[in-house]
């Protein structure tokens, strides 16, 4: 009963001093809003990143030459080649298919306009390993070796369209000094997993074709999909020992698990950082509430005296002001959650992330708002309760 009338009282007195209440509310709204937005964005980014790995599957490894060469002296001149890469499935029982590739930047020209884009020299298995889908046309086939064919990524498509191209498949573009015929347009792929970023940015052409244009190009990485029934560590061992035996070459084999683990660790730090920034603004907001409550206590000293004379216990007075502070923070919290979720939605919209509401963060937001109300309302409420009733009655 007394809680209900206290809440009604609190709302009345808060609406009675609108301007002040609104200013205090803004502090809490900004605080809770930023905590919610930052924590939500943090978990959305994390989910987004994991999603990309899952899209490609976790049975993929990336093989590259060890950059800092410590193990084998003679490997200095040794490289991963198309031949030794294509030998992997035969030599390592755990490897099912491989997709070696290299990338080169060059000028491309269309309708007299020049720009620099990357090109990937690939084999036909590149499509299945990266799970690429086509918007138009077809992908490169093993029969296309040495042909001046290319498949283009989303950004190249956009660029060409903006340069006035109408029918892309079948038209020709000048890359370095060769005319390539576009045979397919790729759907946009999400990055961040193990996919090379060039897929969206550039063009893809047969390995052999590009190797003739860039004779000194070195294989950047070999993507390999594993056979089921083999553990990552086991396959890693097979691949490393293969290169050691045949080429005296030290290679790094990266698996998604390791990357995911590393990423999760980074994300936790990221979320923690964002949460801390949000919490600081929340503390500032809380101090605003405390200030408003102290002013409210001072302004209503006489009221406190009257209530004490009418039989309010110290606890009743303390409770009344505490409820007022909690109500203030609760309202601020609800609006803040709304704004935080809204901000998250806008960020996701522009970043093309999958938006979702983390209900745990909403619940935490409400909890935190109420806690802020209690924490920062406690001192003013105690001040109110400790007022001497006679002095309070005499004040103006």
């Amino acid at each position, binding site marked *: 009963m007394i809680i209900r009338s206290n809440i009604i009282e609190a709302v*009345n007195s808060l609406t009675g001093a609108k301007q002040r209440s609104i200013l205090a509310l803004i502090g809490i709204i900004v605080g809770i809003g930023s905590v919610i937005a930052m924590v939500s964005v943090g978990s959305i980014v994390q989910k987004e990143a994991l999603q990309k790995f899952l899209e490609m599957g976790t049975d993929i490894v990336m093989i590259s030459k060890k950059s800092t060469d410590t193990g084998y002296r003679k490997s200095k001149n040794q490289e991963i080649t198309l031949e030794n890469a294509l030998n992997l499935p035969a030599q390592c029982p755990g490897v099912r298919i491989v997709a070696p590739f290299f990338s080169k930047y060059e000028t491309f020209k269309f309708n007299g306009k020049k720009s620099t884009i990357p090109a990937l020299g690939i084999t036909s298995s590149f499509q299945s390993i990266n799970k690429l889908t086509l918007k138009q046309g077809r992908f490169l086939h093993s029969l296309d070796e040495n042909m001046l064919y290319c498949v283009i990524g989303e950004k190249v498509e956009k660029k060409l369209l903006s340069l006035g191209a109408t029918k892309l498949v079948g038209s020709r573009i000048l890359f370095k000094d060769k005319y390539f015929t576009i045979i397919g347009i790729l759907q946009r792929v999400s990055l961040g997993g193990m996919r090379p970023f060039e897929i969206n940015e550039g063009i893809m052409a047969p390995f052999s074709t590009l190797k003739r244009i860039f004779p000194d190009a070195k294989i950047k990485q070999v993507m390999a999909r594993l056979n089921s029934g083999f553990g990552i560590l086991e396959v890693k061992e097979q691949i490393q020992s293969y290169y050691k035996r045949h080429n005296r070459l030290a290679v790094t084999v990266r698996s998604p698990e390791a990357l995911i683990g590393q990423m999760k660790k980074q994300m936790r730090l990221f979320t923690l950082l964002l949460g801390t920034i949000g919490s600081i603004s929340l503390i500032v907001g809380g101090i605003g509430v405390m200030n408003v409550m102290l002013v409210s206590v001072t302004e209503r000293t006489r009221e406190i005296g009257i209530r004490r*004379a009418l039989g309010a216990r110290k606890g009743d007075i303390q409770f009344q002001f505490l409820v007022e502070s909690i109500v203030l923070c609760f309202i601020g919290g609800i609006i803040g959650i709304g704004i935080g979720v809204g901000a998250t939605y806008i960020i996701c919209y522009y970043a093309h992330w999958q938006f979702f509401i983390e209900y745990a963060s909403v619940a935490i937001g409400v909890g935190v708002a109420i806690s802020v109300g209690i924490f920062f309302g406690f001192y003013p409420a105690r001040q109110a309760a400790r007022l001497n009733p006679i002095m309070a009655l005499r004040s103006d």
Partner: protein
Amino acid sequence: MPDFQYPTNSRVMNNMISLVNITKTYEIGPVQVEILKGVNLNIEAGELISIVGQSGCGKSTLMNIIGLLDTPTSGSYSLDGRPVADFSDNKLSEIRNRKIGFVFQQFNLLSRLTALQNVGLPLVYRGISESKRNKAGMQVLEKVGMLNRALHRPTELSGGQQQRVAIARAIVGKPAIILADEPTGALDTKVGQEIMDLFIRLNQDEKITLILITHDMEIAKQCSGYVRMQDGILHKN
């Protein structure tokens, strides 16, 4: 030190209010000011007594002590035969809430609340529901002739009307005692007299003990008895 007992000359335990040798000293900086210098007063249930004196003579301090808002520096105060010095702060609040009604010179209504809400305020601290508070509030507002102003806020009422609402608030909890500190002080003579008539009626009809503090002899004379206060000491009239 004059030993005043009213109205009988023996100290009887069934006195509702019994003050023995009450003193009150305030420390204002380094200076100690003795406001009450040994007050003795007995008040029986159902009395209508006024305490008369110039401003600054200590009568408000005395009322605060009787009203349990303040504690004496020395001396003993018994309410219904029980020494109040034994009571905790919460107990004192409860007694104020259930046994005592206050009426102030400046009415002391909360301007945010309607007359009806103001009247119901003491019942909030008994945990009584709003509907019951309103029902009780309407009853007492009718008693003081303010039923038609129940939903007005204090700023929309005249001084006399506000004081009637304040009296309704004082009696809504069916207290045994009403303490009124200069209840007519802020009102003109005619309205003041109406308020006084209301007090007399409450005293006679509801058998409420009334203690009135005033500097107005015309008011004091209408009471069943009055005592004069001067320089912290009570004098029998």
